Structure formats: structure tokens, C-alpha cells
């Protein structure tokens, strides 16, 4: 009985290694491009795409929504502070 269990475990072990080998063979067949080539493609992507989070490289010509909302909030505050001519005391 013990021997049978041992055999079963070994059988599973063999199957695992064989599966791993099949994967390794597949991985070996995979086409790989040189890292210099992939690096250059990444560098080009970084340099060509607009990124307003880097203001030294990309200056946003327009106000962004956050800035617009700040301006709106400030003008609203000013309006509320200025009582105008309709204040009833």
C-alpha cells in the first residue's frame, strides 16, 4: 500500500516536470527582441506623448479643471463678500 502511494506521488512529480519542460520548450521558441530595441521604443513613447505632470517638458496651454474650479470658487467668495447695494440692515 505504502509503495503504491509512493509510486503515485512519483507519477505526479514526473508529470509536473514534463509539463514544466513543455512550457520551457515553448518559451525557448518565443521570439525575443533585443532589450536595446524595446528600451528605445519605450523611450520614444515617453518623449512623444504629452504629459502635463512634467511641467518642464509639457506646459498645459489651458487651465485644467482644477484651476478653473479654484477661479470659480474665488470669484464666488468675492461676490459673497461684496454686499452691493441691496443689503438690508
Amino acid at each position, binding site marked *: 500500500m505504502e509503495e503504491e502511494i509512493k509510486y503515485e506521488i512519483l507519477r505526479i512529480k514526473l508529470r509536473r516536470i514534463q509539463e514544466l519542460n513543455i512550457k520551457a520548450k515553448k518559451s525557448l521558441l518565443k521570439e525575443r*527582441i533585443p532589450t536595446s530595441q524595446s528600451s528605445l521604443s519605450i523611450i520614444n513613447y515617453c518623449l512623444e506623448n504629452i504629459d502635463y505632470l512634467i511641467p*518642464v517638458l509639457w506646459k498645459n496651454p489651458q487651465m485644467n479643471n482644477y484651476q478653473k474650479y479654484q477661479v470659480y470658487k474665488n470669484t464666488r467668495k468675492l461676490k459673497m463678500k461684496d454686499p452691493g447695494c441691496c443689503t438690508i440692515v
Partner: protein
Amino acid sequence: MDNKAITDKIETINNQISTAKNEARSLYTEIESVKTKVRDGGLKENSYKIKSIPNHSINPKLYNTLEGHQSKISQIQWNKESDKILSGSQDGYMIIWDAITGYKKNIIELDNQWLLTCSLSPSGEMIASGGLDNNLTIYKIGDQTTNRPNVNYFNSSVQYIFKGHRAYISDSKFLNSHQIITSSGDMKNMMWDLHKGDKVREFIDHTGDILCLSTFNNENNIFMSGSCDGYVKMWDVRQKSSVQNLFISNYDINTLKVFPQGKSFVSGSDDGIIRFFDLRSDCELSQYSITSEFKNFSSEPSFGWKQDNLSSRNSLNSVSSMDSINILSVDFSRSGRLIYSCYSDFGCLIWDSLKGEIIGAIGGHLNKVNQVSVAPDGIGVCTASWDSTIKVWAP
């Protein structure tokens, strides 16, 4: 007689195992030699001609501090239009915030308080939450267009409770409007369909808890998962097994993010190293290590952030063994030039992905910063913290 037969069998199988092992060894040496041939310079080596970004130039301004949660924030996500943020906290609520005004738009009371992940569908109608109860709960949120406050703050309903995982759900991501992927501590990824209302399939190959997922911007059928087993695996929902396997390190992989171009990714692990991998070359292009970066500064460090930002640390010159340098979250800026990264003890640091230098930091939280996310429009950045607030930053 029987015993003899079994001993013979064992002997044959032992021989087969040793042959298979030898084959495996030679295959791995072959793969390694192929990979060495391919390695002819990474990002740093190829970007020496490019001008560095000055240290003090990345200073995003704080526009909103979103207050309302009562406990640690577990996860945050921007909507597709970059004007709302979904946050999930362990206080038992998820909140949808207006990122621009800072107001709450919707509050979702959770079935299970112990949330680890929350995710917003591309249409913004469906929300998924998962956590320590092993279930994925899908909520449908109501109309948010009305301007009247307090009317439909709590307008949401549970649509599905997906059961199937045998351990905690660590991460979830919508692939499209009706399909969602989850990763779990039971070493499986699962795909669920909202139209069918059921599990579609499982993805089995990892040999440790799966901790993170990342999806691709323009591809609805592929995703990646990172695990405690040290591997990152790429999956195609149309294929049975994983499409690509990359060994990252012997430490847990906590976070993953696919590069905006979609052919490479960064991983953040418990060893404190961010690694930039390329899927086309099948190997590493760059490493970003906080310890080696600090060693470069012998006396006064000259980063572009205030020292008090970094959780009351007095000296930045060295990283002592007491410091925890685990990486909790990473994200790319829109062009991929910046990597925002959250460290356990160092707050949120900004790396130049090409040059491999730290060029800034985001500070201001009172506790560990555990999440960072850049808006899809590339303008807003939000950070979430254990201090139960979320901060929204923009240039």
C-alpha cells in the same frame, strides 16, 4: 510478486524523473543563454543622451483633501472620464467623490466591512468590492446627475454576490462593461460575467497567493497577475494556460502596472525594488532601488521635497534595517516617464522611469500612503492613506 512489480515501476519512474530533470536543466540553461544574448542595454544605458528632469520641477499642487472615511483606505480608482474617484475603506463604506470639487457623489454601504479591493466599471454604473469574506459583491449605483444634495447619496443596490474563491480576494479589475477579473489568496484568478451572473472561468498556474492584477489600456482580453510565488503571469482569456511567465524576485509582488504603451510593465515587491520588465524582450530593462539611490548621497540629499513630508524621518542618508521598504502601489504618468510609487515608510516617491532617479515626492499625509493612482487624462493624481483621507493633486 506484486511488490516486485511495484518496485520495478518505481525504479522506471525514478529513471524517467531524472531524465526529465536533466532535460529541464539543459532547457533552462538554453533559455538563460538566449536571454543573455537579448540583453544588450536597458533603459538607463539607452537614455544617457536624454536630459534629466530637474529635482524641484515636479511639484503637483494639492487641490482637494477628501475627508469622510473613518478608517484605512484600501483601494482607489479613477473613472474613465477622470472626474470621479471611487474609494473603498475598512470603515464599511465605499464613496464616489467628485475629484474636482471634492464633494461626495455617492455612498455605498458594504455588506462586508473587510474590504481589500474595489473596482468601477467603464460605464461607471457598476461597482465591485471584494475582501476577507471571499465574495465579490457587485453594486449598481443610481443616477448621479441630480444637483440636489442628500437625495440619492445612498442610491445603490446589490446586484450579485459572486461566491467561488476559497480565500480572500486581493484585487479586482473590470475587463469591459460586463466582465470582471479577481485575484485571490487561493492562488486562482477568476473571471465573472455580469450578464450571465456567474463565474466564467478560472486561471490556475500560480503557486502562491495572488496579490495584484493589472489590465491593458487597449486590450480587453489580456491581463497580468502578480503573486507571492515571485512570478508575474500574463493571461489571455481565450487561452487555457498563462501566455507568458516572468520570474521577478523571491519576495511577494504587491503591485503591478502595465506601461501605457502596453508592451511592458513595472512591478513593486517586498524587497523594495521596482522592476521594469518588457514583454517583447521577456526580460528586465531597469531596476529602481531606494537603498542604492540613498547610498548615492553621501552627505546632504538633494531631492525636491520637504524633509518633513517623509513621515517625520530625520535623516534620509541611509535606510536602516528598521525601515520597511515594501512597495505598496505604483502607477505611471500619462507618458510613462514618471513612476509614482508608495513605500511603507517613505511615502510616495516619484521616479524618472528612464534615468532611474528619484526626482520628487508627494507628501502631506499623516500616516502610511498605501495607494497612488494617476487619472486617465494624465492630469490628476490621487493618493490614499491609512490616515483615512485621499488627496487630489494636479499641476
